[in-house]
């Protein structure tokens, strides 16, 4: 694949991606409005007393008195200038709210992702290399257990064991409040808070990668080109690394792309169980309060991220297996 070919591919994909994001914006705009109730009603209801005047005031302030089409136009205009609008409930710009919460989610999910891929693939390779032995059985059992156990339950057990019984790791929040830490001390502090939630979030995918890698390795190992390599007298190490693993990783990469794309949605539960101040919970709260602008903002940012990650996955795919035509 030469450079210009690759560039063309990138431009094409970016245009497609933009189309997808715009489609998501419009679809999401109407989808969130399908839910019964609107933000004015929620706010009025929560205030414990309301009259028609109060509701009308709120609706006018939120722009809900305009027609849906006008609302969509105003919204699209804002998005075009990266203005995600205003959360009237919280009285902050949606952009600032997401910017404040997104890093926490990215940190959590990226750590979980790295953990899941590295440990999962390693375990999968180990199991495949020692297929039929006790090590293989052990890894398979671990993977199956992690695969079958619900996230929130794992989280609670972690809290019980590591926070309450052993008192090794903190369970609530993202860093120590009121310590005023900086630099390395702060990083160390956050790292301790990060362990349990990222493990909880990562275990399920780790199990998936382990199973996927193992099965894929075993399948590839039976193929002709591996036999040919062996016949040529290559050593076992290079055969495993360059012939088997490289080919076996393709489905794993595909799956990693999927995981990376769904990462924000999947973190809602873990963010709840560990009081992790991330964007997943922000979206959940926004949904309950019918905070349209905020919910849409999170939708758009996360779907844009998913699209970008998809793109990156495709590129990596092509790099791992040059036979795959990127332009196709």
């Amino acid at each position, binding site marked *: 694949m030469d450079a210009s070919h690759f560039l063309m591919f990138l431009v094409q994909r970016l245009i497609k991606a933009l189309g997808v994001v715009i489609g998501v914006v419009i679809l999401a705009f109407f989808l969130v409005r399908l839910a019964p109730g609107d933000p004015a009603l929620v706010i*009025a209801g929560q205030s414990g007393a309301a009259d028609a005047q109060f509701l009308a005031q709120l609706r006018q302030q939120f722009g809900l008195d305009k027609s849906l089409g006008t609302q969509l136009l105003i919204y699209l205009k804002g998005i075009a200038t990266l203005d995600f609008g205003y959360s009237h409930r919280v009285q902050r710009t949606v952009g600032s709210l997401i910017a*404040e919460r997104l890093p926490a989610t990215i940190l959590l999910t990226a750590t979980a992702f790295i953990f899941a891929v590295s440990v999962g693939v390693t375990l999968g390779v180990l199991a495949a290399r020692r297929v039929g032995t006790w090590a293989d059985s052990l890894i398979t059992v671990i993977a199956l257990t992690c695969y079958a156990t619900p996230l929130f339950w794992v989280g609670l057990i972690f809290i019980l064991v590591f926070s309450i019984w052993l008192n090794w790791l903190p369970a609530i929040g993202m860093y120590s409040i009121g310590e005023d830490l900086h630099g390395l001390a702060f990083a160390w502090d956050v790292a301790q808070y990060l362990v349990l939630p990222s493990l909880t979030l990562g275990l399920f995918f780790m199990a998936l990668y382990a199973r996927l890698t193992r099965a894929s390795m075993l399948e590839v190992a039976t193929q002709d080109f591996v036999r040919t390599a062996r016949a040529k007298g290559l050593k076992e190490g290079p055969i495993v690394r360059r012939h088997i693993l490289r080919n076996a990783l393709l489905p794993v990469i595909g799956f990693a792309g999927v995981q990376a794309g769904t990462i924000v949605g999947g973190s809602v539960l873990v963010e709840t*169980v560990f009081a992790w101040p991330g964007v997943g919970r922000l979206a959940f*709260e926004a949904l309950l309060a019918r905070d349209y602008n905020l919910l849409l903002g999170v939708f758009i940012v996360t779907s844009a991220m998913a699209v970008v990650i998809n793109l990156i996955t495709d590129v990596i795919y092509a790099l791992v297996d040059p036979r795959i035509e990127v332009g196709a």
Partner: protein
Amino acid sequence: MAVDQTYRRLSRRSLIKLTAAGGLASALPSTFLCPEALAQGRKVLNTMITPEPPIAVPGINNQGPTLIVGSKLFEGLLSYSPRLGARPALAKSWEVGSDDLTYTFNLQTGVTWHDGKPFSADDVVFNLTKLHPEVNPRLRATLANIESAVAKDPATVVIKLKTPFEPFILNFDATTLPMLPKHLYEGTDVRNNPANQNPVGTGPFRFGEWQRGNFIRFVKFDKYWQPGKPTLDEIVYRIIPDSNLRGVALQSGQVQMAAFNDIEAFDVPRFRGLPNLEVAINGWELFAPLSWIDINNRVKPLDNPKVRRALSMAIDRNFILNRLWFGVGKVATSPICSSTKFHDASVRLPAFSVAEANKLLDEAGLPRKADGTRFELRFMTLPYGEIWNRLGEYIRQAFGQIGVKLNAEAVDAATWARRVGEWDYDLTVNFVYQWGDPTIGVERTYVSSNIQKITFTNTMGYSNPKVDAAFLKARQSAKAEDRQAAFSEVQKILVDEMPVIWLLELAFPTITDKRLKNVITSATGIHDNFAGVTLG
């Protein structure tokens, strides 16, 4: 009322696990660290707030959590004793003229806002005549009755009413009429004022930091007008979305106080048994949340008072109190809570009797069909957390005994509010604050002039000219005796006609570390400013 407790919904599934986790945890010593709580001898009260409030300015937002948090920053002219007597706050004294129309408030001197500007009578006038009439729907009628409010001098405000309004004096605490700074709000778009993000009040604590979804931190205001107060250096409200985790935080000492929605009533027995904690259920006298089964009075056969009475008799309120709420609260006996003024103790709901209820339904011409049921109704459960689901299950079972089949409809909070507002329900559950006086907090539910397509009005569509007349008489009477007579009449009629089925006078448990003192001292409990709270 109405606090959105739906945050619990997500964690409900994990509740099953809580039983395991909680049981195990309670068997273990509390070793959970709380490094920040006692760092460097600073007195920091770590507590929680559920759910996270949208802003911390009461008046502009009136959700429960906003009132709890905001009352540390903002103060009212008065506060109220547990028996609802007025006590000084920003006003050091007050007089009511012999015409029952003139109220004179003498303000404390030397009060400053957190930004250093002096607090004066002008601020009070601005709040009474401009700010609250615009943003506070609950106060609109009360404040519209003000003929004039004048600052006679920087420390004196004279209010003249158009007509006598006896409960007027109950409208001045921090949760109802908090004083917001005129110099920041005058001439601005109040609801979107930047000061809503950086609140400036007169309270003992000033705004420190708010990390959305993580914590809210208030710090001691050094120039607070009461010398030697506050004694706490900081209050940190942690946002902990999962109820199990809130239990863990409390049990482990990571927080020293849980209140309001933090801990569900069915977890209270667990905390009652712990030696380092104290459980209080007072401090809700002004709000007096009263729970009831909300009946759409337009729906047949619910338009028949006999049927509503039968439904009421099928319910064992003591079971609800003791088995579902574990003793937190009281059984309701009339439409007016026992802590609210003009409660008539001689009025009683008909006693629990399934046999009597069955008889009433037979008399109403609603015999059992072959399958044992008489009729079916839609029933929306209140989406405010696990305990309301359990109540819903009990009600279904109780009504089943008299042949009334309920088809449960699970909805989220926004949907619930919309459907109640649109009268699109047969039965649901609700709880509503009473605000100390029936004219303020009870009248709105039953008068025909308040039949509106808006939640927390007379959505049930109940209408009785006698009730309307009695409420009006009570509203317009200046004398307590006349009002008592009117309200006694109202209570008798309402209990007879049963437009809703009253269940419990609710309370919320306040669970505190024993080292924490002076937390609940008034009718508004944890909504006080915490100037006098100490952490030993």
